[in-house]
């Protein structure tokens, strides 16, 4: 009888102690409710490019929280759409963009420097400050900083900016993906010719 009492008493004491610790922790470490807008904003790429139709990433985050579609972020790509739908518990939508924007190849802006007149218009348009230069001086793009958002192409008065695909380096190279379902059957060498197989049957 005594053993049972000790066992029950010990477990209850432990449980009470742990309960007290957790209760204390939940008061001590209380975090101000994390609003959904901040979580959405954290998933957006922060290019502030405005391709979603809102003036920046934060306003778009507010709009999404308010019920707008979550597939309008072009720089974020399909990845962001999937993450947003996971966060919001909504359906995964197809990225709302032109056909050209869905090409998976990453592109960066390139300024044909011989044609650049140094007007600084592209510098003002760049949301991530990836274009270097001054008035009357030739501009150039910092390739590592460029997000490929296209915003600098439009304002250029002499059309000297083009989008070029990023070259593959040893750092970014990956194994090519397997050919996909159905590929092995097509690759197989037919051991019995189709005509003769029909004759035999």
């Amino acid at each position: 009888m005594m053993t049972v009492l000790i066992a029950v008493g010990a477990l209850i004491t432990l449980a009470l102690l742990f309960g007290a610790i957790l209760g204390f922790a939940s008061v001590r470490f209380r975090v101000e409710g994390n609003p959904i807008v901040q979580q959405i904003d954290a998933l957006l790429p922060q290019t502030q490019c405005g391709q979603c139709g809102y003036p920046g990433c934060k306003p778009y985050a507010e709009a999404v929280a308010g019920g707008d579609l979550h597939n309008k972020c072009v720089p974020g790509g399909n990845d962001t759409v999937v993450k947003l739908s996971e966060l919001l518990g909504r359906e995964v939508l197809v990225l709302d963009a032109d056909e050209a924007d869905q090409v998976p190849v990453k592109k960066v802006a390139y300024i044909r420097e011989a044609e650049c007149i140094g007007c600084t218009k592209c510098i003002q348009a760049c949301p991530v400050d990836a274009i270097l230069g001054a008035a009357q001086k030739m501009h150039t793009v910092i390739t590592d900083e460029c997000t490929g958002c296209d915003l600098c192409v439009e304002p250029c008065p002499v059309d000297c900016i083009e989008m070029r695909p990023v070259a593959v380096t040893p750092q970014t190279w990956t194994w090519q993906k397997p050919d996909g379902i159905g590929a092995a059957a097509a690759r197989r060498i037919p051991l019995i010719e189709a005509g003769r197989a029909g004759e035999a049957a």
Partner: protein
Amino acid sequence: METYALLLISTVLVNNFVLVQFLGLCPFMGVSSKLESAVGMAAATTFVLTLSSALTFLAYQYVLLPLDLVYLRTVTFILVIAVTVQFTEMFVKKASPLLYRVLGVFLPLITVNCIVLGVALINLKKMDNTLVTALLTGLGAGVGFSLVLVLFAAMRERIAVADVPVAFRGPAIALVTAGLMSLAFMGFSGLIRI
């Protein structure tokens, strides 16, 4: 020092908790479809395993043994593990929101994971059971779990787009892959005897 190094190698490779002792298979199959989430899960599990194996050791040594309540170890350990994980979650949420975003989702998942309880119980059977060995076993189990989980997730990402025969698609090929990995890890057996 040498014993400790051997203990680590033994828990990480030779007696790998997932592929040799078959503990913690649920997250191994469940959280391995994307490499990114696998890395998060691996980090969270390593952290919890290290902490909980030390704490369960303390609970065993200073509560259960003196009171002669060794038969209550499973219940007590579950209690200790649950509290540890819950407390850690609250603390991390307050102290580092960034870390919480990486590990937070996985912490509650680990509470009821058999690898955590398994390591705590296996610790008791060790001959030289001290706080340091308990801590190292926990850490080794976590590192071993991380190793196989990340390797497996990387393979599954490629399997997902491969041309697998119809009957093998989905969980079947994943289990076959896990079995082959397990065979590979069995190759370490006999390397170290502790």
